[in-house]
């Protein structure tokens, strides 16, 4: 059978990929992709831990349910922000969106 550690390692790899995307990418859409990947890594951890619990429990699944809903909201608002930024600046390159800089 598959050990719990394997899930944790896959989740850590997904987190690393997401952090790389967050810190390096310039396109706002790619940054949104990276955030979604990190949220999925966290959800995978919750689902794995709750399956390996003894006695069995579904609390982790409920937390993932909430997390998926929150991530859908976050994507919705983030995409609206990207649309506004594109309308105002004609670009979604985050290095050029620096009007708030003093």
């Amino acid at each position, binding site marked *: 059978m598959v050990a719990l550690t394997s899930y944790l390692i896959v989740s850590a790899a997904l987190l690393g990929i997401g*952090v790389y995307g967050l810190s390096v990418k310039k396109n706002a859409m790619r940054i949104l992709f990276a955030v979604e990947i990190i949220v999925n890594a966290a959800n995978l951890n919750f689902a794995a831990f709750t399956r390996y619990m003894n006695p069995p429990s579904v609390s982790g699944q409920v937390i993932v349910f909430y997390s998926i809903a929150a*991530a859908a909201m976050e994507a919705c608002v983030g995409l609206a922000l990207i649309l506004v930024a594109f309308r105002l600046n004609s670009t979604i390159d985050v290095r050029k969106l620096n009007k708030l800089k003093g």
Partner: protein
Amino acid sequence: MALITVPPDITFIVLAAVAIIGSIMALQAKELIYGAISLAISFIGIAGFYVFLDAPYLAMLQIAIYVGAVVVLILFTIMLVRREETDEMVDRPEGGEGAIGLWLAGLLSVGIAGVAALAGPNLPNAPPPGNLPVSELGPVLAVEYPIPLIILALLLSAALLGALVLAKVEK
């Protein structure tokens, strides 16, 4: 009665490869559209993990919300914000940025994976038998966590209104 007789290890490796390669391609694909499709494939890999972890309800949610709603929303937004320059913006890191990002991500993930591997002997090697059915989820959701459910509903409507107000075209 097992419909699938593939050994679990091979299933796990295939799912992990789909999820990890899908997310790498989502960030590194040249066209943004291909990146969004790779992201959908990566999410389907995670849904496979949920099936593998005996959480079919989560797998259904993952496919319905992430692959069905979020990725389609992302695809529409990409089509709205598409310009020649954003298309040609290959998004390669300049100078030392890529190396710094790689170091940061590598240290973080190797550190967490190392802690998980060190704790390995104390963690269970196989899931305990006798998983709870999907019907257990409803009582837990409604009896143990009713307040978060209500807050989530309020938050959902607030986010929806906020997104509408943000994206509205002002005359």
